[in-house]
């Protein structure tokens, strides 16, 4: 398991793509659970959210997992870009006419594009919240915690930011629609009995999670 286990072969790259992708999918659930607390816009709800944000940035176990998360995001992006470049090189002359719709879903043929858009969103998103929480000059709330809620409320009162967020969740949905079930296939987990279940779960996950994420900025914008 020397070099070949990391990036040596086309298959090794896909295994890591699948493993990091699945880990990021699990992370989405945890992230969403935290975000849903924002729907409670009462003063107590705001304090509770700030206390939760403090816990998530200071509790050692969460911190340890967060480093694994940063690594997974960067590795998934790097590996994906590497794969995309190799795939381009594998077909130097493009077809004059290609009927892609006849044999594959749009998302499955555009994972690199979708992933790049998500990466751009992540940079904007993390600058706005993650960077501010860690190194920004945040005010304190009544309990003495950093007032991240105020930063979120300010961001979600700007129409362009809400629109960007919702559009990015649509991009994420398409990425997940193919990516979730694809990661199982990459790991060799294909079985006539279980694959249809995995595919159904993937569609449910890919639709419901981004919709719930997108609901929050819309809700906060409407009730600002």
């Amino acid at each position, binding site marked *: 398991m020397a070099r070949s*286990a990391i990036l040596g072969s086309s298959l090794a790259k896909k295994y890591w793509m699948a493993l990091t992708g699945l880990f990021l999918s699990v992370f989405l659930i945890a992230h969403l659970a935290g975000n849903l607390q924002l729907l409670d816009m009462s003063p107590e709800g705001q304090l509770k959210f700030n206390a939760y944000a403090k816990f998530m940035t200071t509790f050692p176990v969460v911190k340890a997992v967060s480093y694994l998360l940063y690594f997974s995001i960067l590795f998934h992006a790097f590996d994906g870009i590497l794969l995309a470049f190799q795939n381009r090189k*594998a077909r130097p002359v493009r077809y004059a006419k290609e009927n892609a719709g006849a044999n*594959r879903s749009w998302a499955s043929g555009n994972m690199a594009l979708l992933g790049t858009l998500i990466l751009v969103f992540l940079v904007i998103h993390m600058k706005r919240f993650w960077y501010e929480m860690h190194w920004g000059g945040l005010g304190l709330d009544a309990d003495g915690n950093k007032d991240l809620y105020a930063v979120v409320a300010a961001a979600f009162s700007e129409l362009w930011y809400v629109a960007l967020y919702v559009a990015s969740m649509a991009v994420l949905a398409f990425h997940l629609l193919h990516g979730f079930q694809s990661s199982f296939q990459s790991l060799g987990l294909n079985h006539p009995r279980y694959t249809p279940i995995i595919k159904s779960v993937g569609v449910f996950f890919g639709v419901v999670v981004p919709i719930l994420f997108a609901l929050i900025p819309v809700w906060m914008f409407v009730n600002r």
Partner: protein
Amino acid sequence: MGNMKLTLKIWRQSGPNDKGRMETYPVHDVSEDMSFLEMLDVLNDQLVRKGKDPIAFDHDCREGICGMCSLFINGEAHGPGRGITTCQLHMRKFKDGDTIYVEPWRSTAFPVIKDLATNRSAFDRIQAAGGFVSVNTSGNLVDGNAVPIPKHDADKAFDAATCIGCGACVATCPNGSAMLFTAAKVSQLALLPQGRPEAKRRALAMVEQMDKEGFGNCSNTGACEVECPKGISLEHIARLNREYLAATVTKE
């Protein structure tokens, strides 16, 4: 002789080093009962009569078995229709007056020899890297039927073995990946007890050769399975993924 008239947009390339270009050819006297290759024969006949260079394209058995015919027709490998090669594609799939695009397989690993003919020997090299069972031929052969094989496994192995190595999977894949071909050639042996002793070495060697040839990476789009004339299933790609993972983790 039929009475269909068509406009063909065909890739012309005089040799491996020529840049190549799409050229337009009108063709007449096409019957809807002709196969696509017979239609190209008619076009070539008309070209030769005018003293022009006929279009080079691969073909051999013309009954869907040999895997020689190729052609990316109107944006699909072996044209519209499922479970067929180009020789089994009939002109009744098209209408009088249609414009049809005809291009060679596009892949770094399948360089164009001339016009629509490509060099697919990369597949032969993948096969030679490990797609076989070493058999002792010194005279003490074991009777094949002495080893019990479940019917289900034998059927699956046979499904994989129906791959004719035409390259439609590579041509169709947006990444130019040869995973369906390699997976079929690994699976047809991995499912049988005779193939198990060399399974690890086979998976490692064939994938290594596949990567070396310059094929792309599998994105599980499933396009290959749709366009494969023999209906080779993505299940075989998953099996190759398992075989390779197990071999990578346990190799010494």
